[in-house]
């Protein structure tokens, strides 16, 4: 699963801490999502999408090779 969180956050000129505070999660969690070490839950993915004014599919993408287990 890939995502554009870092790109969108940088575009808005906000820090990981700012985004974390806005979403009610830790800065470490934002960092893990941006580095694609952690896949957020659906509610958190939706909250991220709403924060950036987009949809989940615009921010989180799944490779064709990946299978949903």
């Amino acid at each position: 699963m890939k995502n554009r969180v870092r790109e969108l956050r940088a575009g808005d000129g906000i820090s990981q801490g700012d985004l974390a505070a806005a979403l009610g999660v830790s800065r470490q969690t934002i960092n893990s999502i941006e580095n694609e070490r952690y896949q957020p839950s659906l509610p958190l993915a939706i909250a991220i999408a709403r924060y950036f004014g987009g949809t989940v599919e615009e921010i989180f993408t799944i490779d064709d090779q990946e299978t949903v287990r």
Partner: protein
Amino acid sequence: MTRATLTGHRTASAAVLVVGGGAVAAAVWIGGDHGFAVALVAFYVLVAALVYAWSGGQGDIAAIMRVGGDERQRGLDRDANAITGYVVSFAAITGVIVQTARGEGPGGYGVMCVVAGVSYVVSLTALRLRR
């Protein structure tokens, strides 16, 4: 998604240490080793103070210690607990095998195996009802 980072109970882990350590110290006291019991109380109070201080921080471990982390931090705690359960179960099974090979009964290792097995079945049954 869960709200977290600075929420939770900062006293949670410290309280567990004080209560658990106090119980161990009381058992040692009742066993007759009063000096060691007093030393245990001092040790657990010191560790609880350190944990209390640490749990006020911003990191993952601090959040887990105050039982107030976000979804990722709670997931880390859950996975660590699961791995710990596997390791303890494996150690108990190994203990039963070694004890049996030595011609002795399973003893406490057997009790641990039974507790682990029953706990797994009950947990699985309860979790299936919720999901």
